[in-house]
């Protein structure tokens, strides 16, 4: 079972299923549901960035929201100023990536590890939150675009077909864009993990000292992984700004970062497809909870999370994997252990 899971065929299978779902969904659901599913897909891109840097590179980043927010704000500010969206999308990927590069350099080359890194990343996201939150005054603007402080930036123009500012993406096209981006990123990451670089990154996560003694510069590899994670989160932020035509400082908040971590844990740390599912499940759940009146939303979500941790600690996908293993796995005799 594990052999299948790690082989390229499982990645191909997942991607195939993803493509089929993407093509089938618009035919079955109405407009509103499509828009809903789109935001789940966008958040899943964010989840996968955290899943990659945490599950595969061992970097506990408590502030992935920083890159998410940077992507959203970069897109918003540049598209309002430039009027055309192709460059802003690229900037929304590059700027968070650059910031991740700088922050990563700051942290990894200072030999910071685990919980201390978590605190620094958390603090950085709070610095963003507090700073952007105080920009409500009219003097805070970049070019034509006011930063808006707590109010955020409303009415953000949508992505248009390259070269044609009037021709913006309709909900269906945007859904395809997000979904295929997610599938492509998933495929790309799986490919990366199975490549030589990926093996080194995972080795560093398992035992950094051993990897260093074997001659690999752990800091450089971690920096690479962290930057990549930042780029992906930035793209998610760009799509998010598009989906709601809106962004605000709460995108940098502790609650947002904690949410991402919850998605990854629920889906299964150490897998890529798990956090995608975990993210969608929890997003859907919180939306449903908000439409009923009987119980307070926080109460319901809190109970679900606590029960989940106690009963399904590994997360959805690994637990499902265990279940499938028990049902279909090869029988091992006493002397043979995998």
């Amino acid at each position, binding site marked *: 079972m594990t052999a299948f899971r790690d082989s390229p065929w499982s990645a191909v299978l997942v991607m195939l299923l993803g493509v089929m779902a993407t093509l089938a969904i618009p035919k079955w659901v109405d407009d509103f549901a499509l828009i809903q599913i789109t935001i789940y897909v966008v958040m899943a891109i964010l989840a996968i960035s955290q899943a990659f840097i945490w599950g595969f590179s061992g970097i506990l980043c408590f502030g992935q929201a920083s890159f998410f927010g940077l992507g959203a704000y970069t897109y918003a500010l540049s598209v309002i100023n430039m009027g055309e969206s192709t460059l802003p999308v690229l900037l929304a990927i590059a700027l968070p990536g650059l910031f991740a590069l700088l922050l990563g350099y700051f942290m990894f080359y200072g030999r910071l590890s685990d919980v201390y890194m978590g605190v620094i990343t958390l*603090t*950085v996201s709070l610095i963003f939150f507090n700073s952007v939150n105080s920009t409500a005054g009219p003097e805070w603007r970049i070019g034509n675009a006011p930063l808006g402080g707590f109010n955020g930036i409303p009415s953000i123009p949508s992505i248009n077909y390259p070269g044609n500012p009037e021709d913006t993406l309709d909900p269906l096209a945007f859904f395809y864009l997000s979904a295929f981006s997610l599938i492509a990123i998933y495929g790309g990451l799986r490919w990366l993990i199975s490549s030589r670089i990926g093996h080194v990154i995972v080795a560093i996560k398992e035992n950094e000292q051993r990897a260093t003694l074997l001659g690999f510069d752990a800091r450089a590899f971690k920096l690479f992984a962290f930057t990549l994670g930042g780029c992906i989160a930035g793209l998610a932020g760009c799509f998010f700004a598009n989906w709601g035509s809106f962004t605000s400082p709460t995108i940098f908040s*502790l609650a947002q970062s904690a949410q991402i971590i919850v998605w990854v844990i629920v889906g299964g740390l150490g897998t890529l497809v798990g956090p995608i599912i975990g993210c969608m499940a929890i997003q859907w759940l919180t939306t449903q909870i908000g439409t009923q009146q009987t119980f307070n939303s926080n109460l319901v979500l809190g109970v679900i999370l606590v029960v989940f941790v106690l009963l399904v600690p590994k997360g959805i996908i690994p637990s499902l994997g265990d279940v499938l293993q028990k049902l279909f796995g090869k029988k091992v005799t006493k002397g043979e252990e995998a």
Partner: protein
Amino acid sequence: MDLALIVSVQVLYAVATLVIISAGLAVIFGMMRVINLAHGEFLMLGAYSAIFATKAGINIWIAMLVVAPICVGLFGIVVERLIIRHLYGRMVDTMLATWGLSLLCVGLVTSLIGNTTSGVSTPEGNFSIGAYSVSFYTSALIVIAVLLLFAIRWVLRSTDWGLIARGTMQNPAMADVLGISPTRVYSITFAVGAALSGLAGGLLAPVSGVVPTMGASFIAKAFITVIGGGSSILAGTASASALFGLINQLATFITTPVFGEVALFIAAVVMLRMLPQGITGRFFKGSL
């Protein structure tokens, strides 16, 4: 001159506040390596306990200093029993569980008590330093923070229980061999940490708006202080609070409260970069 005095009082107050809100988390994280994301909610429960006790007629000081810690300490025992116990050594899972717990607490309090409750006003009154007024309560908090540090030191250093707790944290297997039950020690330590958080909540009830979501404003700073302090509970918390409180309040005076917060955060980032193991990873090493 007056201004200098008022600034010093405010700085000491900021440091004292940080000490008070971080003490509980320092015990739980420092001794058990449990990341308790529900720390802010323990504070909130302590604040509500103090309020209800005061409204029921108990003297406000007793409500804050006795009732609040006891209530939240008991709650901590229950939480440890039901949830944390199963998750020792699994940092990731404790994060998720305590985050769920924090949502649960907020939801529960909102449903049961609602979000408009009358609070308690600050006891005692105020005095003047030149043209400025300072409330007596501010000075009281400063004194309490100092006493708290001494109390923790005394318990850990000079009591049997403190010794047992420290020993169990260092080497649970050894403690078990020597006849001490590690599970009981963990349970009591978690309860003590919770009680300290409850105390903090009770003490802060008169000076902040007590609403079910008040925990959110404290948790980030508490975490940054505790982890910035490093592995020693006492020296770490004290030194980190002193450093961050000073920077925060000075920056607030010079600019605005927001940039005061940002200054605190930037200081934390820079400091952690220079001292990757926290303050007590380098200075006061090996102390309590």
